[in-house]
């Protein structure tokens, strides 16, 4: 076991006080990431020491003590564009794509001194619950390498769990891609309110659902970095930011904080050990004075269906741009009819799940079916948002386990039917469909596998969710996080 990892906050203050040499930390980060890549397949692309040290030297040449996170090692999910660094979205169709710009979230962190170490593994275009649909690798769970990391931000959760250097990961969630791997790998994963972090430079899956967020070893690491990316961006027409929102929360105290637990969410849990960890977590909260309310969150099965219709419908239009021209996988188009050329490229370079989702989404938008599927799903979303809002009128937060199971074995996932895999998203989809800020934090473990709980707040209560989670984290001693 390595020495205790410094928090991002401690790292920044010690770097500024010149108590530690950031180059030493950077070297350690690069080495550990290389090892995580060999042993756990956490990365699709690593930048290596030469490039990262060059970045560090550039930061040194400026007034770096004024920056918010100078020299902080950052990893970026590979569906988020990084200037000059290959960005594949986990797909063969973008195997050699090198963006000439940074996504806004990446740019904002780089402007404050963060250094990109590598691009983390993802299911192809985010299409997956277990990170077993990546064209290049299958990340292995740090707690048991036979098991999945969870998806789609599997590589991000993997390196966050393994890292003994200060670090945050930029991840992304459409229907649970931050919460699920955070729960499975025993780390903290925060998904902001829809629109609070700019989607500019994100290789989109579903525009009305995609959210860029953060993972870290602690709530404090995430809460320290999050305000730097929660900014309105003129380059994203759906960006709303978090500035000018009422986020002045009086010092939060767990005493009298009201948590609503929906019965339907507990009924959906297949693994009794997940429930046991959850009940123990809840009783600890209660003993600290928190108020626990049992509530009903109807329509979770319908939310799952609505989510898959909306997500695949939007994905099928978004993925129309990949056709072997301008960027991405291509062949010689000469002598071919355009329909033939585009179809051939797409069939060769999209993976099995990407094709499935394109087919499902195209079907849901087809004449004759659009009203029964796509439009109906959008209306169900309205009902789901309403039922959340109703609960959040009386409660501060909604609380339930993040996933209905603990991380399954990679081989058993390969034997699952698509509809069985989609059903695993039943607990992560509702807050994602509703665009509500939510966090997954480690709640304990069963048989040495981590179990996470999800804390959901109202729209734009992002800081409230983070501050409350921070208090909860302080309440639990470190023993709920399994040492690797």
């Amino acid at each position, binding site marked *: 076991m390595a020495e205790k990892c410094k928090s991002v906050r401690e790292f920044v203050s010690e770097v500024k006080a010149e108590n530690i040499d950031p180059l030493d930390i950077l070297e350690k980060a690069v080495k550990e990431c290389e090892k995580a890549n060999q042993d756990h397949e956490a990365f699709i692309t690593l930048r290596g020491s030469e490039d990262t040290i060059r970045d560090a030297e550039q930061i040194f040449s400026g007034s770096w003590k004024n920056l918010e996170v100078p020299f902080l090692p950052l990893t970026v999910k590979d569906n988020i564009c990084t200037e000059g660094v290959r960005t594949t979205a986990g797909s063969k169709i973008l195997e050699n794509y090198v963006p000439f710009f940074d996504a806004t979230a990446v740019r904002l962190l780089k402007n404050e001194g963060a250094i990109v170490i590598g691009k983390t593994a993802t299911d192809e275009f985010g299409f997956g619950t277990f990170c077993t649909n990546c064209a290049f690798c299958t990340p292995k769970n740090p707690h048991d390498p036979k098991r999945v990391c969870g998806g789609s931000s599997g590589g991000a959760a993997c390196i966050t769990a393994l890292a003994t250097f200060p670090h945050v990961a930029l991840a992304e969630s459409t229907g649970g891609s931050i919460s699920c791997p955070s729960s499975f790998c025993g780390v903290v994963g925060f998904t902001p309110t829809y629109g609070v972090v700019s989607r500019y430079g994100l290789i989109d899956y579903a525009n009305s659902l995609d959210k860029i967020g953060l993972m870290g070893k602690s709530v404090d690491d995430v809460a320290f970095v999050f305000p730097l990316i929660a900014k309105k961006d003129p380059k994203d027409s759906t960006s709303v930011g978090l500035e000018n929102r009422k986020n002045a929360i009086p010092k939060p105290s767990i005493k009298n904080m009201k948590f609503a637990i929906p019965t339907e969410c507990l009924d959906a849990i297949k693994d009794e050990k997940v429930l046991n960890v959850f009940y123990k977590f809840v009783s600890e909260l209660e003993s600290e004075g928190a108020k626990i309310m049992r509530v009903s969150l109807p329509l979770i099965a319908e939310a799952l269906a609505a989510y898959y219709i909306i997500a695949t419908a939007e994905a099928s239009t978004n993925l129309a741009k990949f056709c072997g021209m*301008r960027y991405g996988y291509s062949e010689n188009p000469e002598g071919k*009819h355009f329909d033939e050329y585009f179809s051939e490229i797409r069939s060769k370079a999209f993976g099995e799940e990407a094709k*499935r989702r394109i087919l499902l989404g195209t079907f849901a938008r087809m004449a004759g079916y659009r009203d029964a599927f796509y439009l*109906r799903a959008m209306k169900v979303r309205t009902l789901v948002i309403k039922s959340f809002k109703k609960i959040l009128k009386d409660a501060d937060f909604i609380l339930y386990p993040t996933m209905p199971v603990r991380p399954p074995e990679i081989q058993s996932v390969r034997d699952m039917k698509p509809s069985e895999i989609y059903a695993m998203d039943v607990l992560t989809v509702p807050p994602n469909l509703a665009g509500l800020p939510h966090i997954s934090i480690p709640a304990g473990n069963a048989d040495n596998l981590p179990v996470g709980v999800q804390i959901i707040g109202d729209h734009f209560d992002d800081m409230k969710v983070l501050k409350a989670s921070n208090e909860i984290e302080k309440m639990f001693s470190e023993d709920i996080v399994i040492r690797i």
Partner: protein
Amino acid sequence: MKIEVDENTVKKVAFLARLKLSDEEIRKYAEDLKSILESFHTLQQVNVDDVDPSFQPVPIKNVTRDDEERESIPQEVALSNTSNKEDGYFKGPKIIEK
């Protein structure tokens, strides 16, 4: 409504989506789509009368920028991610038949 998904449906959808599928893939995806849509049948049972659709989860106003000339990316940068180019243009398959 009754939803029929068979291999012909998949062929039709695949053409619309510009996917060229093998017979084996058509058979497999027809089966998958059928079971996925069956598992989503609850969607059809929700009463959505008088419910407005939420195209976004939060209310969002459209944002426009001033219609002013501004710097664009250089042509060679735009072309840097493809080998299918000629004289500063993207080169694609033929659209108009002779």
